């Protein structure tokens, strides 16, 4: 047996023994997703057990170095772990902007003290992070942001407003882009970290068309941020910001894969029924679903290829933009089809049998996929310029 086979056998046995049965059921609602954070009362006992056991092995972040709370696994081992988790339907023990966005940026740009301070807490889910990038007048044109950080000796004084800060009201810390020099656009931005409990930070929820409101306007009024919390160099935060965005896009592209299983098809079979040949009785819907499935399954192969290339250092740095674009457009298409398949049942908004309008709300929520993390148009701009090297 090769080392990898041994690793697989051990991993399989460990997962069998340690993954609670409740954590092998599909995620159906927001409550099933674990975000960690200071307020651990949001977790159910099995969620907590699963998180603690995985974190103890460093397997919430399997490929991070062990010194920073990771599992120290090779790319091949990480892939095996992922496959073995999928095999038993194990849930992600921890969802976190710390893992998918800030962590990689700290690993690359953070100093040793920052890594030792923040990474292990991210790995254990002790601290929940939010992302302070967008502002009312800086969305797609992110570098035009105005929130300022003034040098006040041993600390910065931060003033301004962010918008669309996902989960700001539940987050413990924020990674935030601030302006430290007004003379240049990209060259005057810095990347700072601070505690959301700092005096002067306040949040106000934004209600979405889906009825969800985990998004906030975030206000900073003379917030004191210690200088030790500056990541990378002063005025060089744009590099950190872009690197982190690549990881955000990578994470969001995974949405194109969330359609696993037969839910869409089963839903259509239930409402539309079958014809004499046993096929979905609405031939146009059937054709649309079939062609959607071709793209979605092919995209799953592309995601696997993308990860393999990434781990081997072969992926073009702008490739996450392509993945984000394709994955989010697919996810929207899947929800459009699910609504068509569900018919009038799917548009019920508050009824018990629709679980409070789950289908309709999820459908509406997906419309943000091609906006958050940079719009589809922006991703296409990036692919055109950086990969296809088109002029202008």
């Amino acid at each position, binding site marked *: 047996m090769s080392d990898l086979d041994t690793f697989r056998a051990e991993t399989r046995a460990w997962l069998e023994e340690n993954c609670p049965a409740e954590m092998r059921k599909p995620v159906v609602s927001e409550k099933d997703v674990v975000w960690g954070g200071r307020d651990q009362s949001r977790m159910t006992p099995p969620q907590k057990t699963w998180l603690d056991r995985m974190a103890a092995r460093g397997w919430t972040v399997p490929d991070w170095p062990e010194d920073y709370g990771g599992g120290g696994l090779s790319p091949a081992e990480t892939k095996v772990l992922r496959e073995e988790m999928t095999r038993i339907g194990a849930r992600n023990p921890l969802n976190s902007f710390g893992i998918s966005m800030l962590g990689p940026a700290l690993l690359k740009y953070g100093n040793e003290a920052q890594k030792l301070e923040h990474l292990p807490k991210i790995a254990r889910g002790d601290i929940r992070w939010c992302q302070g990038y967008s502002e009312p007048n800086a969305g797609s044109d992110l570098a035009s942001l105005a929130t300022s950080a003034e040098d006040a000796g041993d600390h910065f004084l931060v003033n301004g407003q962010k918008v669309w800060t996902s989960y700001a009201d539940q987050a413990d810390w924020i990674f935030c882009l601030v302006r430290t020099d007004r003379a240049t656009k990209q060259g005057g931005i810095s990347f700072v970290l601070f505690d959301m409990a700092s005096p002067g930070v306040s949040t106000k929820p934004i209600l979405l068309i889906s009825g969800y409101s985990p998004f906030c306007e975030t206000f900073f009024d003379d917030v004191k941020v210690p200088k030790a919390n500056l990541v990378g160099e002063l005025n060089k935060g744009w590099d950190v910001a872009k690197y982190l965005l690549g990881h955000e896009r990578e994470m969001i592209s995974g949405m194109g894969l969330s359609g696993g299983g*037969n839910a869409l*098809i089963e839903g*259509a*079979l239930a409402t539309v029924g*079958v014809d004499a040949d046993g*096929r*979905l009785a609405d031939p146009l819907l*059937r*054709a649309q*679903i*079939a*062609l959607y*499935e*071709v*793209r979605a*399954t*092919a*995209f799953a*192969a*592309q*995601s*696997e*290829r*993308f990860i*393999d*290339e990434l*781990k*081997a250092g*072969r992926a073009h740095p702008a490739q996450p933009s*392509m993945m984000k*674009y*394709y994955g989010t457009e697919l996810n929207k298409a899947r929800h459009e089809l699910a609504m068509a398949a569900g018919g009038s049942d799917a548009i019920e908004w508050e009824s018990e049998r629709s679980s409070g309008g789950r289908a309709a709300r999820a459908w509406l929520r997906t419309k943000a996929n091609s906006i958050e993390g940079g719009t589809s*148009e922006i*991703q*296409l*701009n990036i*692919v*055109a*310029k950086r*990969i*296809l*090297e*088109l*002029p*202008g």
Partner: protein
Amino acid sequence: MPLFLNDEQTMLRETARDFVSENAPIAHLRRLRDTHDGTGFDRGLWRQFAELGFTGILIGEESGGLGLGHVEAGVVLEEIGRNLSPSPFLTTAVAAVAALEGSPQAERWYPGILAGETVAALAIDEGAKHRSGVAMRAERAGNGFRLTGAKQFVTHGHVADLLIVAVRTAGSTEDAEGVTLFVVPADAAGLTSTPERLADTSIAARLTFEGVELDGDAVLGEVDGGRAPLERLLHAGRVGASAELLGVGGGAMDMTTDYLRQRKQFGVAIGTFQALQHRAAHLYAEMEVARAAVLKAQQLLDAGADQADGAVSLAKAMSGLATTLSVQEGVQMHGGIGMTDEYDIGLFMKRARVLAEMFGDANFHADRLARGRGY
């Protein structure tokens, strides 16, 4: 196995790329077309393919081949696609080799294929659209069989040395069992072949079998049990056509993005226009997704995995969709020049149309996948 080419496969790609682009670039296709060549490809080039070992990629080392797999065959096919090179490689060195594998006929035909002397053609389709059913019949006659019926879209059928023909020996059209594969020599009595030139200048034959008599040893595999070799043939042919489609789609895309960088209107390169940038970027995404689907299918087929069948249909459907988009956008973004015969982009469109139809189009394979998933 990671989903990218390993070092040896990358080296093979470089060899194939250099060879095909030097010896059979698009100008080669034009020359065959403009001289009204009746063969449809260049036999000298086919022998050179053999000298490089390409014709033996899928033939085991014990039989004198290279003993490689569908990933490697696909590497060569992609370069064939990119250069629009007319070649019997797909039908002969890929699909026929896969069908013959492990049979007594392999000993008879592999040496000629390895030498670049033998050309095989596949007589599978009976109507204008590829179907899984087989209607053409064979009756038992003495020690052998008598074949009656017709096949069409038989690429190289008019010059092939051997024809692999799917025929019904029992049951009815849609039955899985009761199909037998026959290896029919080109000069069999009662066989008529009518070559027809296709839009892409390749030549495919309509074949008529009027009581063609064959010995029992013309049977490839088992009598009534031809599905196994037929499936090997179709898997190899489908995944191979997908790889060639990637070459065609990728070639058209590269031509188009080059043009976007060079062509000036309103005083600027047209590639600065966002409407075109976005369409080019979308096209790139579709091609990348197709590329992953094809590589996945090739790897699964080489591993003999159960999921290979679905993966192959997926590859054919996705490469068909992406390449169709690529050639359509290609002609449109070239503007008027894209409509001229002198310019190459239209040739990509014609080749894509033929390959998209071969072994089942995207709709056929999407339907097949849907049935597999119970709807």
